[in-house]
């Protein structure tokens, strides 16, 4: 054992010395047996909790009957997909999902970039660090807390915002139930929670910019705005592109928890998205096959979007993800 281990790494490149390939495989398995033993729990985890559910996707093509079980339930082909696409809910879900994603893209996506650029202009490192510490905090707070804080402040029954409005305008706004307020509320929550955290990656990219470029630009008489435009922004361009690709993949993902927590019977028309729909039909109503089909539709579009955007990014000369 001791000897074998000592030879360990040296043996790797001497494969030709073995008589057959099978013997080589056996030798290596034996030599690395502890490594394989260590791998086992992790592999089991991935198989059981990630790959077995992938197999379960077949449910989307079956008519699942609990008393028949997974194997014996009847195949129905694309039946569930057909039902879904013909359902008027489909357009509501697609519209809500896309509108939320688009609003996020327009209002949330640029926010961390702008914030990082502003932070980058701060010379006083103590001040910069303090601000950073403060703006990272909301990221670590759970969505339930964020939603709870929103409820406590926005409720018409003694919520601070409404009390304030009532004192000065004499009327209250039911932010939590009014469908017109749902989208702005979601976007504001997202910005509050994740904007600061989002700056980290851009600040990291900005830290890598060569200081001499700025010095040269100052020599040429470039103003601060010009420096940002011609040096700083191009420096973080590839980071922006990569994050944009990642975002495209999640365009049909609006974050289950947030929507679920902020949704109610009154704003459902603008709030219900694919994930909450899958939950409502699958988990609470037991329509397993149908909701699996909805979920699968969503995942497949997501994967196609990531690969597509990545391909496009490469076409435009960016390095992309893969």
């Amino acid at each position, binding site marked *: 054992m001791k000897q074998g*281990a000592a030879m360990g*790494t040296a043996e*790797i490149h001497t494969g030709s010395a073995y008589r057959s390939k099978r013997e080589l495989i056996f030798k*290596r398995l034996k030599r*690395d047996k*502890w*490594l*394989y033993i*260590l*791998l086992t729990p*992790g*592999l089991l*985890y991935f198989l*059981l*909790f990630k*790959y077995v*559910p*992938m*197999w*379960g996707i077949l*449910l989307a093509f079956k008519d699942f009957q609990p008393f028949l079980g997974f194997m014996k339930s009847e195949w129905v082909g694309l039946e569930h997909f057909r039902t879904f696409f013909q359902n008027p809910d489909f357009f509501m879900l697609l519209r809500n999902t896309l509108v939320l994603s688009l609003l996020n893209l327009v209002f949330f996506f640029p926010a961390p970039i702008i*914030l990082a650029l*502003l932070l980058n*202009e*701060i*010379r006083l490192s103590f*001040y910069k660090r*303090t601000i950073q510490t*403060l*703006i*990272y905090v909301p990221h*670590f*707070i*759970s*969505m*339930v*807390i964020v*939603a*709870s804080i929103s*409820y*406590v*402040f926005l409720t018409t029954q*003694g919520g*601070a915002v409404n009390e*304030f409005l009532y004192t000065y305008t004499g009327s209250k706004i039911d932010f939590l139930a009014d469908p017109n307020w749902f989208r702005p509320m979601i976007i504001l929550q997202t910005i*509050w929670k994740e904007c600061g955290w989002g700056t*980290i990656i851009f600040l*990291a990219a900005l830290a890598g910019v060569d200081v001499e470029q700025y010095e040269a630009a100052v020599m040429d008489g470039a*103003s*601060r705005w010009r420096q940002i435009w011609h040096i700083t922004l191009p420096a973080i361009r590839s980071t922006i592109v990569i994050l944009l690709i990642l975002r495209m993949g999640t365009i049909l993902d609006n974050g*289950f*928890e947030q929507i*679920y927590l902020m949704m109610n019977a009154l704003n459902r028309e603008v709030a219900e998205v694919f*994930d909450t729909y899958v*939950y409502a039909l*699958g*988990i609470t109503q037991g329509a397993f096959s149908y909701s*699996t089909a909805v*979920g699968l539709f969503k995942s497949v579009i997501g994967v196609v979007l*990531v690969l597509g955007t990545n391909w496009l990014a490469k076409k435009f000369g960016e390095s992309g993800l893969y």
Partner: protein
Amino acid sequence: MVKKQYRSTGEITFDIFNYIILGIIGIAAILPFLFVVAGSFATEAEITKRAVFLIPTTISFDAYKFIFSTDTIVRSIGVSLYVTVIGTIVNLFFTVTMAYPMAKRYLMGRNLILNMVIFTMLFGGGMIPTYLVIRDLQLLDTLNALILPGAISAFNLIIVKNFFQELPVEMEEAARIDGCSELGLLWKIVLPLSKPVLATFTLFYAVGHWNNFFSALLYINDPSKWPLQVMLRQIVMLSQSAAGDLSLMDPNFVQPPEQSIKMAVIVVGTLPIMCVYPFLQKHFAKGVMLGSVKG
């Protein structure tokens, strides 16, 4: 460091505005929470008198007394603590034991395993098939359902693997020559060298468990096993403030204002995060950078 140079009035105005704007943003990030903390100490009179305040005129601990005297909330805090501690231990065990072999470039089948892990980041079974697997494993309504399905985060695994890979090979070889076994190597050499990374992920995993709402919503129907986040939603959003039990037991108990109780529960739900945040903050910037290194 930078030599004093000529600055135009435009630049000075820019700087002043920049400092002010960022100051406002920094305060805005924590202000809602400060209001909630203030509100949680408020008395009924305070709440009806002023809607928004940062410093209450009279401080009352009634809301907290109330929370800690109800069975339901205390039990849910217990559940959350249990899941956070045990869950984090499980996370670390699974992540480290898998990352370590994967960091060995000579391991047969390494690329296959790596691709298998990466694929799960791109595509998954989805909510319903995963739910059915948990159900078939008899995990529904057990606290294990909050721990096992998230035992490894593929993203964290790859970062830890990359970190192990960067450790100097020479140290490992020297230990082998001295007769150190594979497990000894992991325990005595690799783990001690990885303390900063492990600390980062311990905190990330722990925060994830404390904040977890989704798994409990899906897999736990029994209210006595609800973690604090689910209880919080019940109390704040569905307004089922476990009010009943206390006023029945003690007729002299003065019910604290509803709003204060809600705020106090929010504070309790956030408190552990606020306690670990200073430790977290030291590490995470580095942790995130590690993640952006490809490999």
